[in-house]
């Protein structure tokens, strides 16, 4: 873990997420050990590692779906504490996309997208609807606006989930294995949306097994194992010249 800090803000020079000495326990089990990383604005960070290595826990701590036990997490200048108002602000500024989509099955696609803007940001219905339609255009499925999630394919559902997160105009997007629950032929349509998003300058932290995506758009790749960050580096170094033995072993298993 040599130059984590040195590398941190290379993208734009401004930090947006800082994790300092973060530990997280589930009972006796330590899910995160001494995590230190700083993520810059507009940076795309891909987190990889074997299952159970703490990747998901890491990004779930960033929007407080999990509470870290030690250390400091600062998102856009706000430290995550037990103060519910701070948590609320951080959650509004970070979108999250889940492996299982987690769309609201009792609402139509457009209502899924406009629920939070209308309820949390108090947007007018007309404005929220227009924005939602623009987002659906962007993810390529405007014709599905009046359908229910159950009527869509997995790839379409995940694209709606991305649109739902974007509707809150977040500064950071967290992706928790967004393509792992998809049939192979639908992975590309979701990755395409994510690539477009990255190229548009969104700050993104992506937990994924899609190495192609990591090579194509990541500014840095983070390799985790046993709750620790083992190695961090730009993809060209990371994939071609890994330093740590555990990284080499992992890459040899998946590539």
């Amino acid at each position, binding site marked *: 873990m040599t130059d984590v800090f040195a590398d941190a803000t290379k993208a734009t020079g401004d930090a947006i997420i800082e994790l300092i000495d973060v530990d997280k326990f589930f009972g006796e089990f330590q899910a995160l050990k001494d995590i230190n990383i700083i993520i810059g604005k507009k940076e795309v960070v891909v987190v990889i590692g074997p299952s159970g290595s703490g990747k998901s826990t890491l990004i779930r701590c960033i929007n407080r779906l999990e509470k870290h036990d030690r250390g400091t997490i600062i998102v856009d200048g706000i430290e995550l504490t037990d103060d519910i108002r701070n948590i*609320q602000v951080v959650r509004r500024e*970070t979108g999250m996309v889940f492996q299982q989509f987690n769309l609201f099955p009792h609402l139509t696609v457009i209502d899924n997208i406009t*629920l939070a803007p209308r309820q*949390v940001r108090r947007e007018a219905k007309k404005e929220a609807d227009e924005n939602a339609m623009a987002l659906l255009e962007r993810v390529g499925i405007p014709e599905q606006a*009046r359908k229910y999630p159950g009527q869509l394919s997995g790839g379409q559902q995940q694209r709606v989930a991305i649109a739902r*997160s974007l509707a809150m105009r977040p500064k950071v997007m967290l992706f928790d294995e967004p393509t792992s629950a998809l049939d192979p032929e639908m992975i590309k349509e979701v990755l395409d949306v994510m690539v477009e998003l990255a190229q548009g300058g969104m700050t993104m932290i992506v937990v994924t097994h899609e190495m192609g995506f990591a090579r194509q758009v990541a500014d840095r790749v983070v390799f985790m194992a046993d709750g620790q960050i083992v190695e961090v580096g730009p993809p060209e170094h990371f994939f071609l010249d890994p330093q740590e033995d555990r990284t080499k072993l992992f890459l040899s298993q998946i590539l």
Partner: protein
Amino acid sequence: MTVTPARPEDRMPLPTSAGRGVSEWARTHLFRTWYDTLLTLMFGVAFAGATVALIRFVGAADFTILRRNLALFMVGRFPRDQLWRPAVALILVGVFIGVMAAMTVGSAIAKAAESGIPMTRSTPWAVLRRFWPLVAVAAFILTLTRTIGPAVTVLATLGAGVGVFMAAARIPWRLLRRGWLLLLALLAVIYLVLAGGGVNWNGWGGLHLNLFLTVAGILFAFPLGLLLALGRRSSLPVVRWLSVSYIELIRGVPLITLLLLGAFALGFFLPAALSPGQVIRVLIAITLFEAAYIAEVVRGGLQSVPEGQVEAAQSVGMPPWKTMRLVVLPQALRNTIPAMVGQFISLYKDTSLVTVVGMFDVLRVSTAVNSQPDFLAKGLESVTLPFAALLFWVGSYVMSREARRLEKRLGVGER
């Protein structure tokens, strides 16, 4: 009667659409093998025998006992010169149902217009078919009346309901969608004042009492049960502990005990103004009892909503109570419909337990009238009890059917 075929090649052809004829259907379904035939004949004879017996019974039955005591069956010992009160209250219920139907249809139309999916409007004939058991029983009861009053009341109720529905259908009800609960509460209050105002509360009885206790019990117990279920999942230990204690305490006591306590002990705890009569005390007991059960039904529904739903709502910054109200509860309550309706149906039948505190509900009336001099020891329970059973059945069956309809419309079981 189909039986698992012995050999694969015996397997019945898949049923195709019409055109195969009744005889073909009967051959494959009723008379495939000799034991199919035997079973078909046995059940056929038994069914025919039962039908004949039923027809002879109904044909031979003397409904005089019902005819003469119809008012007792319907309203118990409610003062006869005050019967206009429940009659007016019933017409009012018709008006409210008309308004609510208009609201439901109105918002369905609005939704259809928005989504571009055309809505199928039900015809009056379809509505009649939907409620046929109710219509049939109401018609049967009207044939037993000896005065014009009941028929006038029923017609006025129907007319008021349909009239208001037609008139109200023009109003853009979407604005008032949340007014539903308010309307219901308003109805309950007006009903209480109108039907009971100034009349001896202890005189309530008959089917009127059963229906009132059921509807009012549901109306009051549902919100209370919802609060208890939410309290049971609260992060505040005191609230959680109080909810659990209440639920477990009430569920550990038979309804009869609560009714007796309500009737005889509630007076000590409440100021006289709050317990004006037996009906209210019994209603309080039923409400407290039902709330505990409804709370558990709702809890089951809450647990059926995946944790990911809450996380998704949180991740877009929804505060906890909005997450509960807009994301969790709609899904949870939808999932509870079957259990909830089961609870309501059993409440309807449990209202007959109020006889233990001396109230003349419809079941009690149906046994008591057999002590009248004219009908004493004639075994006419064979007429009065089936009549009471019919009244319970029709209510339960309509509730059950309507619930299944609602489930279908909300797509329970689909995700």
